[in-house]
């Protein structure tokens, strides 16, 4: 059974068709790079998968649970970091992660927080309020709340956006460490990320899937990935 299933997902905002009949599945051990220009429907698709947006049509299934009908069970298996990694700015990093752990009803919340601080290398800022953190740390806090319960499904909306090369490297390192046990979707504009991180690529443009293939097949489309991208999303 795939851990993530999108079946015919569609969503319109008024007259604007944001996502149209998007279908794919993601298995354990896969890291899917979700590519597409701005406004292509990447975030909307992710929001429907995570249950934040209700799909007009179609079904999203996480770890076997329908996100609309069995929302709480589906969400227990899901870690999600929305675009821009929002967090309660007035809380300290430790308080925020403790809240995330408690809200998820984790049996040993204190231990989960300790491990996550370690994993995401947040120990040195654990006592700082999130508002005072640099962008790199903030993104890592967003990532940390998504992995605190060691979920089987991880959905990350532009987790490396705005990070410097060292910080990007760090996020990719953590992701690679845990990817084998999970099904992961990562949206990005950064084409180089595909080669380094992903096992599979889905390109989406104008709300439709334009290409869904293995990393190697995608990379074999041409040496100039930017040209490949332009051609696929035209």
């Amino acid at each position, binding site marked *: *059974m795939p851990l993530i299933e999108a079946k015919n997902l569609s969503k319109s905002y008024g007259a604007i068709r944001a996502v149209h009949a998007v279908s794919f599945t993601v298995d354990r051990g896969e890291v899917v790079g979700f590519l597409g220009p701005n406004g292509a429907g990447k975030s909307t698709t992710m*929001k429907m998968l*995570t*249950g*934040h947006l209700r799909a007009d049509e179609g079904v999203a299934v996480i*770890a*076997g649970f329908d996100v609309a009908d069995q*929302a*709480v*069970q589906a*969400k*227990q*298996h*899901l870690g*999600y970091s*929305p675009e*821009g990694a*929002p*967090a*309660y*700015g*007035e*809380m300290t990093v430790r308080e925020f992660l403790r*809240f*995330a752990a*408690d*809200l*998820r*009803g*984790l*049996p040993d919340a204190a231990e989960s927080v300790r491990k996550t601080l370690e994993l995401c290398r947040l120990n040195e800022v654990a006592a700082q309020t999130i508002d005072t953190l640099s962008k790199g740390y903030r993104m890592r806090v967003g990532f940390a*709340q998504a992995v605190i319960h060691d979920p*089987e499904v991880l959905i990350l909306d532009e987790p490396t956006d705005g990070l410097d090369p060292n910080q990007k490297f760090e996020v990719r390192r953590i992701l690679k460490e845990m990817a084998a046990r999970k099904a992961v979707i990562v949206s990005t504009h950064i084409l180089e990320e595909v080669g380094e991180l992903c096992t599979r690529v889905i390109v989406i443009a104008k709300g439709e899937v334009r290409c869904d293939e293995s990393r190697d097949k995608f990379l074999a489309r041409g040496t100039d990935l930017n040209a490949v991208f332009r051609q696929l999303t035209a």
Partner: protein
Amino acid sequence: MSSSEKSPSPGLKPFTAMVRREFAGYFRTPLAYVFLAVFNAFAVSLAFFVGGLYESGIASLDRFFLYHPWLWAFLAPAAGARLWAEERRQGTIELLLTWPITVWQAALGKFLAAWLFLACALLMTVPVALTVGWLGDPDWGVIIAGYTGSLLCAGACLGIAAIASALTRSQVIAFVTGFLACFILVLVGYGVFDELLAGLIGSAGVDEIRRLGLWRNLEPFTLGLVDVRPIAYFLSVAFAGLGLSTIIVERR
């Protein structure tokens, strides 16, 4: 796959975590202390300087509670403005709605925390009651009834504030709309406003509408009359507000 065994039922833990965070959230900014100070300053000075609590020479708090609908109409929307507007502004609503807690649990947790905060503000006025007790020999049952009524009145105003907060990402807009809606409920039942209304819809209609005024429902409590109708009124406004705000958040 071990997914279904891995997650034992979390029970009440997520809900209590929600209430704790929201309640503590008030005290993370200086706003809470400003709020408590303003509430106390106004509650006390309105009772003594405008209501003439001391000059009346009567050991009773009805002149103190008389102004509570005004206070709550202003301060419940101030405390309730952040409920959802702040989640939208920070984008954290997307986290909250993708964490394994239902919107209803989250909404109830937020609401109870805010109500508890208003209760703290009210509790800080207990010295007023003690002063009256020291000066005279008040009926403590009546005073306790008055406090109960005031707390219920706060809940009703908070219900309205919750709707206002669910509709916007701006705390300022949430506060202003919440205040205006509560303000109308304060005005209902006041002579001048009723005459104005009677001119528009006739005096029979006004009688019905008067029942919806905040003071009209709080007054019996301040006289020591704990009746089912005003309790039902305050609680239905509070829970209608809670329910409607939850539906608004869910629909978006």
